[in-house]
């Protein structure tokens, strides 16, 4: 096997630490965090994440020094049954190291940011004791994500896959007593977990098929055998790759399972940035890139994947246009951008997909964290405003009549650029990167996907290009609604900038989002060559397409037009307080559709959720209880026995049960008495007749 050619030792023996360091941070905070200050708790968690990043860098350097030769570090025997042999083993190659760097790098910045963000959030939400729990979950997430990306087999990947899903569930429902009717957040968590489980069944079926066809779940072995099996039974590989796609649509929020991701915004904003934008949701992209040697063997599957990605990119972008919640816009944008990545890896453009994954991690984490800064800025403004009103007469009464203030509603914002300078500038960087304006990172990574699409799949190319146009438009709309024009609420007037512990990570991310394109400039293709080490180990040809001016021009032009249009609607005449969105007048019902998310949630409720709930109740109440438990038992079983007994004129009072009871102690007599009163020979008749029946039959057999 390829991996065994490299000797495991030196730096590589550190590989398991990327899992154990964050785990240690988590356990430490769990055990002792209660007695420590918030800064210390957050500091320890951040340090754990930061140290993990250092290990990832060391692994990367060591890997570079041996020309990207993959290394597998065995750790512990896991499940061995007959031919099924899977161990805990850590795989270090350029692909896994890339993911580790992104996860731990962006993760550390978000940890640091969270120290500031959660300090305020726990006060707003009214439970400062939960500060520690947040960092416990965050460290657990880093550990699980590391298992996902460093696992040497599909089964180990799956442990991380569901593990990060658990963390996602826990963090979405972090404020589990909040949200709609006090339960909204918890239900959003449930939704995320359950929808992901649907995808996970796809993963399970993929693994079952893999094992029974390939006889193994270890990456190296599967990929070595793949060409051979493709030659004889390609249908199996087609099936495996499509089953995996089901998993991808769950975890990476693609049609038809994307519906959980927008609801996941119920989690604290750093969670949205880390889990629901930068890292976890890209796991599906990673999975397909990892499984490149399988996907490339079945073009039919590749087409399906690419189409799912393209459609998602387009569809989610339209919804993003109609949202008023600052985080919801970003959420649908994330779904859309994940569509870009999935389309890319689906077409076989693995480098482009991974490149976009990395640059997206920078700018989308930036945008989410900056939106968190905006939200808390609004909260601070609201708080000041509230204090000012404290001097008014009867402020309480007035408050109860008004709908609760929503610091995430962009219609309440406006003009924040003046009050939150840093947040504004980094937001602009993030928005331009996302819109794909050169020379920011998003331009290069998105352009590479479009370039590949223009060669490989025209349908997908068109879908993605339109999506790119929408992207620029909704980001322009957001920037103007949030930062420019005049404040549309008292809170926005008094909004305040966030502290340095939050703005510093923002600035670092802004730098990364700005210069991230340097990773893989057309020409040197540094990132591409780095990843090729992994892909070429399995004889995958990674051809790099030459830079195409038309493709770049079209996408840039469309982005500029999108921004200009946004300016026309939201910039030239900024939205007034209470004013209807100008798009409604122009688009009419289409805008309503965008706003209402094309009623997909309602359709799913009608088609799946409600029928399931009703069917369960019918089963439980009528089929299982009234029919089977009551009617069948009482009427058919007990009733017919009683008829039978009456027919034979049974008059038995041998008291078998009583005697057993008596023999066991005085106390039981009492209960036997109780039973006698209630049952009047019911059980005795049964038991005795059964017993007599046995004696008769046994007697017959023995004496015949």
């Amino acid at each position, binding site marked *: 096997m390829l991996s065994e050619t490299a000797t495991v030792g030196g730096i590589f023996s550190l590989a398991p630490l990327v899992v154990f360091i964050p785990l240690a941070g988590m356990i430490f905070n769990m055990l002792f965090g209660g007695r420590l200050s918030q800064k210390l708790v957050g500091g320890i968690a951040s340090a754990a994440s930061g140290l993990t990043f250092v290990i990832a860098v060391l692994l990367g350097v060591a890997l570079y020094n041996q020309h990207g030769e993959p290394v597998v570090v065995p750790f512990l025997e896991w499940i061995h*049954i007959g031919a099924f042999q899977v161990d805990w083993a850590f795989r270090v190659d350029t692909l896994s190291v890339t993911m580790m760097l992104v996860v731990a790098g962006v993760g550390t910045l978000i940890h640091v940011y969270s120290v500031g963000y959660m300090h305020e959030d726990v006060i707003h939400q009214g439970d400062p004791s939960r500060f520690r729990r947040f960092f416990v979950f965050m460290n657990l997430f880093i550990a699980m994500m590391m298992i996902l990306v460093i696992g040497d087999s599909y089964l180990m990947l799956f442990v991380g896959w*569901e593990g990060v899903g658990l963390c996602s569930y826990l963090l979405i429902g972090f404020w589990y*007593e909040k949200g709609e009717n006090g339960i909204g957040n918890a239900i959003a968590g449930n939704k995320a977990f359950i929808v992901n489980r649907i995808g996970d069944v796809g993963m399970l079926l993929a693994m*079952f098929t893999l094992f029974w066809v390939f006889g193994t779940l270890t990456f190296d072995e599967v990929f070595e055998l793949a060409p051979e099996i493709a030659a004889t039974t390609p249908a199996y590989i087609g099936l495996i790759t499509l089953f995996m796609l089901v998993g991808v649509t769950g975890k990476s929020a693609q049609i038809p399972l994307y519906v959980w991701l927008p609801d996941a915004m119920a989690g604290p904003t750093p969670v949205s940035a880390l889990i629901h934008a930068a890292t976890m949701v890209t796991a599906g992209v990673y999975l397909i890139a990892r499984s490149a040697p399988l996907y490339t063997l079945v073009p039919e599957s590749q087409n399906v994947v690419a189409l799912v990605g393209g459609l998602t990119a387009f569809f989610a972008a339209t919804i993003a246009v109609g949202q008023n919640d600052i985080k919801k816009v970003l959420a649908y944008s994330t779904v859309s951008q994940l569509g870009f990545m999935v389309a890319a890896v689906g077409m076989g453009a693995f480098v482009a997909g991974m490149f976009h994954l990395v640059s997206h991690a920078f700018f989308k984490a930036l945008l989410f964290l900056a939106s968190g800064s905006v939200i808390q800025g609004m909260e601070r403004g609201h708080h000041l405003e509230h204090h000012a009103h404290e001097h008014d007469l009867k402020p309480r009464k007035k408050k109860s009549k008004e709908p609760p203030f929503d610091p995430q509603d962009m219609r309440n914002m406006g003009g924040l650029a003046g009050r939150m300078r840093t947040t504004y500038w980094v937001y602009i960087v993030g928005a331009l990167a996302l819109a794909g304006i050169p020379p920011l990172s998003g331009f290069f990574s998105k352009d590479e996907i479009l370039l590949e699409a223009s060669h490989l799949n025209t349908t997908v190319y068109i879908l993605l290009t339109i999506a790119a146009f929408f992207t620029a438009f909704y980001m322009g709309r957001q920037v103007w609604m949030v930062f420019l024009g005049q404040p549309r609420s008292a809170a926005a007037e008094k909004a305040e900038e966030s502290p340095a512990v939050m703005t510093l990570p923002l600035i670092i991310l802004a730098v990364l989002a700005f210069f991230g394109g340097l990773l893989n400039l057309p020409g040197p293709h540094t990132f591409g060559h780095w990843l090729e080490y992994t892909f070429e180990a399995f004889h995958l040809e990674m051809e790099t397409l030459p830079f195409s001016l038309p493709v770049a021009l079209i996408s840039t032009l469309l982005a500029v037009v999108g921004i200009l249009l946004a300016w026309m609607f939201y910039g030239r005449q900024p939205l007034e307080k209470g004013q209807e969105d100008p798009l409604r007048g122009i688009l009419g019902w289409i805008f309503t559709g965008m706003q209402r998310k094309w009623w997909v949630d309602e359709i799913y409720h009608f088609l799946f959720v409600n029928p399931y709930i009703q069917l*369960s109740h019918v*089963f439980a*109440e009528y089929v299982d209880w009234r029919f089977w438990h009551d009617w069948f038992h009482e009427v058919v079983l007990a009733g017919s026995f009683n008829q039978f007994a009456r027919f034979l004129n049974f008059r038995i009072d041998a008291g078998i049960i009583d005697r057993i009871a008596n023999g066991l102690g005085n106390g039981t007599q009492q*209960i036997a008495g109780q039973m006698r009163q209630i049952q009047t020979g019911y059980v005795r008749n*049964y038991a005795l007749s059964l017993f007599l029946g*046995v004696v008769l039959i046994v007697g017959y057999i023995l004496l015949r």
Partner: protein
Amino acid sequence: MNFFLHPLTMVTFSPLIGVLVLLFINREQKNAIRWVALTTSLVTFGISLWVFAQFDASNPDLQLVIRLPWIQVSSWLIEYHMAVDGLSILLILLTTLLTPISILSTWTAIEERVKDFMIFFLLLEVGMVGVFLSQDLFLFYIFWEFTLVPMYFLIGIWGGPNRIYAAIKFFLYTMAGSILMLLAILWLGIQQGTFNVPDLVAMGGIPADIQLWLFIAFAAAFAIKVPMWPLHSWLPDAHVEAPTAGSVILAGVLLKLGTYGFLRFNIPLFPDAAVRAAPVIAVLAVIGILYGAMVSFAQKDVKKLVAYSSVSHLGFVMLGLFALNSQGVQGAILQMVNHGLSTGALFLLVGMIYERRHTRDMDAFGGLWKVMPVYGLITLIVSLSSMGLPGLNGFVGEFTILLGAWGAGNPGGILGSYWFAGLAALGVILAAIYILYMFQKLFLGPLTKDENRNLKDLNWREVVTLVPLLVLIFWIGLYPAPFFGVMAPAVEKVVAVFQTVAVAGLP
């Protein structure tokens, strides 16, 4: 070896010493009674570890055999024949572990007639261990029926408001199934001339048609016990009415008597019938998985929810057993243990909240995580184990079962269709639905009920009851190798027959 000093005799009957001591203690000295019972069960657990230490995991055959003549009826000899092998050793350890845990859980929950309770409880342990060790069909039957009596009284005396009904139903349903098994046992004894299980297996040679009838007769007893759909309607009654400790043992061990019976008797004794019955059993198992999960989701009473989840979980076990390959059967045995740990722990947790609030209606709760963080965390871990989260025990069992069932699903294989494993895999989704629903109803949302505001978190005794289960939940999830290692040779021996069957493509 001497009868009394043989390790298997000791592990089976050592609880009787405790019973004997208890008879001489004044019934008012409740704490003394509790300590005697707990000590006895811990000693028994110690003896079971001693048995395990003498057990050779690499040996596929029966070990520590003790075989003494017992009753001679004309030419038929009933023997005191006990032995242990890879199929039973883990279940014995599970039984001897869950017994002290259950006793510890009754410390404050059982205040009435503590002495009688403990006597019944220790007698129950004798019966359960005896079932797992018996290698003589008649001896097995005696232990099998014997387990009914203490459980009948545990439910009937210390149960909930509807306990008499539940106890009788439990007794009669199980008894009704056992009658058919008794007939089959007698038939085997008469026709084959022995009740000795290993001899019967080695003899073989039962015509396929008759095998099927015998298979059905045995299956009747075991399927009710498991319980397989649709024979489960005694289960919710028994579980809901039973005291917590009774539910723990009922779910943790008594249900396993059924699945173990299939593995020990049905499959090796009637291999041809097993192959023919496999698809039918798999259908019932898959229905049980999905139906149990759906019905579970629609419950209002949290204990009933957990009870119905057993129907779903045991469906997985049955599916794994009748995949008749190493992955399926090993997964099934592990899942028997897993279910004992996870569902046992769930019943303990339900009991703990019931002791505080005297209700199990999920609408009476909500937001408990805030007032009972430790309780919340432990329930979360156990719930996740129950729904099969990777890294915890449930996943290893479910995954290997489904893997085995998928492998048996290839055309011409034992099950002959991928649909069994495919549909069963949907149970993974449904499990998440009812488990998360339960967790949400109990722990999430705002704390609205005043009665819940001052609930006390778990005390030390309660945590101690749960810790061993938690340790095993993680241990099996992360490093199941020793558990598989213990059972592997014995399972290989059982399934070896079917690998040739599957290849030859029998009907």
